[in-house]
């Protein structure tokens, strides 16, 4: 006899955690199935330098602990080449929010303004910005966001805690930016800044100081009665007498031989992330009466373009204190420009040089490109004091950019993503604007032109009011399926001009709440399946 729950949430990342908390607090039984291991283990020492160097020379960098363990397969040039790659994607309760940079800014009103980019899917939200803003405010409270309002944005009434003061270098940068007519403000970040906080960008925070899905929502959901099933990967959903059967396999995302488990749920919330959610739906085609999923499922995949740039303060002042500190939104073209808190050391310069060498067709040198570490070390001596910033440039949804799975290796995520020409042009224009408006800060770029931010996949189950150009409705319900909702980044119909995490969480809250409302209404009607 399989377990029976009101709601099963697939994926314990930021969206899944927020959704599970919403459902659990409404008094419904909820189980979260998460493919990664639980966070109960202590710190694990990483591989030694020798192993890392050998792995690099062999052209196979070791996956970082806590990151998605299976390489993503990027198909390029109409399927002629396949490139395995890693991305800043997380695993385990909290998902990618455990390894993210904690930037939690809102989309602006202009990000919700409908647009029809030529050749792309419509850029529009099925709901109004003003109807969305209350969910932003509630999510900011839940995740505990620190920062200051954007002086250029009259809508920015974000619920913010005050961040610790700036170090001297950032203070000097602010002065220089203001002198250049720009309006820097304190970046909105989900960091509590406990004493001795090291901001934990790129790694799981061991102190519950950096906001992630696990420490801000999932643990509370468990306290409200939710169950979390770790180390189980959901294989597919099947319809079963008006309910849903969720079939999962024991083991992580790469497991192919684990024991299968079945659970029953009245409703399923999909929150496996924009890369996995559409694959899971595609595998569950038995859910649709005619066996065909919405045609746009898995399509419209978006990433942001993120330029990494170095800015140099006009005077030589020491750098200490918090590092994830500043944002400017004056340069509309490139979206939010924000502190990246990365040191301009040998490694990022070498990785930039390697990317450029590969672009020039020198990729066959493989491990030999490690030699670029020598010029990189020299360059780091001159550029080492610069502050790094990242841009978040909007991407539009194109049908041809999509995700699918290799039928013979279901654990592999295959995707096709080509940077469209118009985006490349916008990106080049963005660089010109940065060079011009920030010239007092002597900007230099550390990423090849138009580099997608592989940690920001979005849009593969896009929301919309028209089933012809969307996969889910405004409430996240998959078209044609009354009891399956998508709550994660897959639903985002636009990529916006800032990091998606806050919008993903606010949208998950909104979608889960509308599901709870529907469940409450159904419970009032006389029906054989009503909740007690």
């Amino acid at each position, binding site marked *: 006899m399989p377990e029976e729950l009101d709601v099963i949430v697939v994926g314990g990342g930021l969206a899944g955690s927020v959704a599970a908390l919403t459902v659990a607090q409404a008094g419904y039984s909820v189980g979260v199935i998460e493919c990664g291991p639980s966070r109960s283990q202590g710190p694990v020492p990483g591989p030694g330098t020798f192993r890392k160097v050998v792995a690099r020379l062999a052209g196979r960098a070791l996956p970082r602990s806590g990151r998605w363990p299976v390489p993503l397969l990027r198909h390029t040039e109409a399927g002629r080449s396949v490139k395995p790659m890693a991305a800043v994607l997380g695993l385990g309760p909290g998902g990618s929010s455990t390894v993210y940079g904690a930037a939690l800014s809102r989309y*602006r*009103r*202009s990000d919700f*303004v409908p647009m029809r980019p030529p050749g792309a899917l419509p850029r529009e939200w099925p709901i109004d910005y003003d109807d969305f803003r209350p969910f932003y405010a509630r999510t900011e409270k839940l995740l505990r966001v620190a920062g*200051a309002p954007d*002086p*250029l*944005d*009259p809508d920015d009434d974000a619920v913010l805690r005050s961040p*610790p*003061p*700036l*170090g*001297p270098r*950032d*203070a000097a940068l*602010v*002065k220089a930016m*203001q002198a250049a*007519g720009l*309006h*820097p*403000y304190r970046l909105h970040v989900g960091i509590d800044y406990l*004493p*001795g*906080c*090291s*901001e934990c960008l790129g790694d799981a925070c061991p102190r519950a100081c950096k906001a992630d899905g696990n420490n801000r929502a999932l643990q509370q959901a468990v306290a409200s009665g939710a169950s979390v099933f770790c180390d189980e990967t959901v294989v597919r959903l099947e319809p079963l007498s008006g309910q849903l059967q969720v079939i999962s396999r024991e083991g992580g995302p790469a497991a192919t031989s684990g024991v299968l488990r079945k659970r029953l749920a009245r409703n399923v919330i999909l929150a496996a992330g924009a890369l996995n959610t559409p694959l899971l739906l595609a595998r569950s085609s038995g859910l649709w009466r005619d066996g065909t999923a919405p045609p746009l499922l898995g399509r419209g995949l978006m990433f942001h373009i993120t330029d990494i740039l170095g800015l140099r303060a006009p005077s030589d002042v*020491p*750098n*200490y*204190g*918090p*590092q994830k500190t500043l944002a400017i*939104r*004056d*340069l*509309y*073209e490139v979206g939010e420009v924000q502190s990246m808190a990365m*040191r301009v050391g040998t490694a990022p310069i070498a990785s930039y040089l390697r990317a450029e060498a590969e672009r020039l067709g020198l990729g066959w040198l493989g491990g030999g490109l490690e030699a670029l570490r020598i010029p990189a070390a020299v360059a780091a001596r001159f550029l080492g004091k610069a502050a790094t910033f990242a841009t978040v440039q909007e991407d539009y949804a194109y049908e041809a950019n999509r995700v699918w799975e290799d039928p013979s290796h279901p654990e592999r995520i295959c995707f096709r993503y080509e940077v469209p020409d118009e985006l490349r042009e916008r990106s080049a224009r963005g660089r010109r*604007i940065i060079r011009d*408006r920030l010239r007092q800060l002597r900007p230099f770029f550390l990423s090849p032109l138009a580099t997608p931010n592989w940690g920001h996949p979005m849009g593969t189950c896009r929301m919309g009011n028209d089933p012809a150009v969307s996969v889910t409705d405004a409430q996240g319900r998959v078209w044609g399926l009354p009891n399956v909702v998508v709550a994660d980044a897959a639903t985002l119909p636009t990529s916006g001009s800032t990091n998606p995490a806050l919008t993903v969480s606010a949208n998950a809250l909104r979608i889960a709440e509308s599901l709870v409302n529907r469940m409450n209404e159904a419970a009032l009607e006389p029906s054989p399946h009503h909740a007690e």
Partner: protein
Amino acid sequence: MPNDSSLGPAVTSVVCAPVESMPEHRFQVAVVTGGGGGIGRAVARGLASAGYCVAILGRCMEDLAEAARDHAHIAPFCLDVGDAARSAAVFAEVERRMGPVDILVANAAVYPKVHFLDQSPADFEETFRTNVHGVANAVRAVLPGMLSRNAGRVIVLGSLADQSPLAGACSYSASKGALHALVRGIAAEIDRVRYPNVLVNEFNPGQTRTAMSDGGQPPEAVYPLIQALIDLPPGGAHGRMFVMDREVRSNERLSRAILRRAGIGPRLTRLERHG
């Protein structure tokens, strides 16, 4: 003022909020635990003569009063550092009366000279309570403030007694061995980019003539090296162990040590005595 935003709101004039930045900080207040006698008293007097306001903490108020006599800048506070709750209260009182603590010299220790099999479990525990928990209690009280100001020096008086314990010094040696890990562990949790001016180090003064030892240098000889540790520049030695003026790396891998001998890699820090 130009505004590139084509879709964003039209902005005519926006006053940028003043940006709060961290102020420069000068070290003023020092705390010496076990300041009633021996090395603690000598270091406290040295620091007071150098112009710091010094709080001395110890169990025996008479000794503390004696140590503070004739020194306007030394204030005595009665405390058994092994008592966590009392430590928190007394350190809060120190900060209230003297201001934020910039320097901690965690010096208090006990040295029961007794064979392991003759020592009561209570006395064994007592050694750890003072020598290890006492240091942890003191650091716990001052470190958050130091981090928030990016200004602080923690100097833990240590010993290499753990490496070849003498007969009759078992509990002392074991407790001092635990301190190495405590100091390195605390140091490892402090981010060097964000808090470069908070330095936590272990300092072994060598044999010194005190109630614990009959021979060695006079306790007054220790102060200049403590001052040298305080004077380390931001980003200087951190999580290190010093034996007198020399840095010692007892945890270093052999390959690293050989490379360093060959002049490859960072050099060991050498402390320069003041004056």
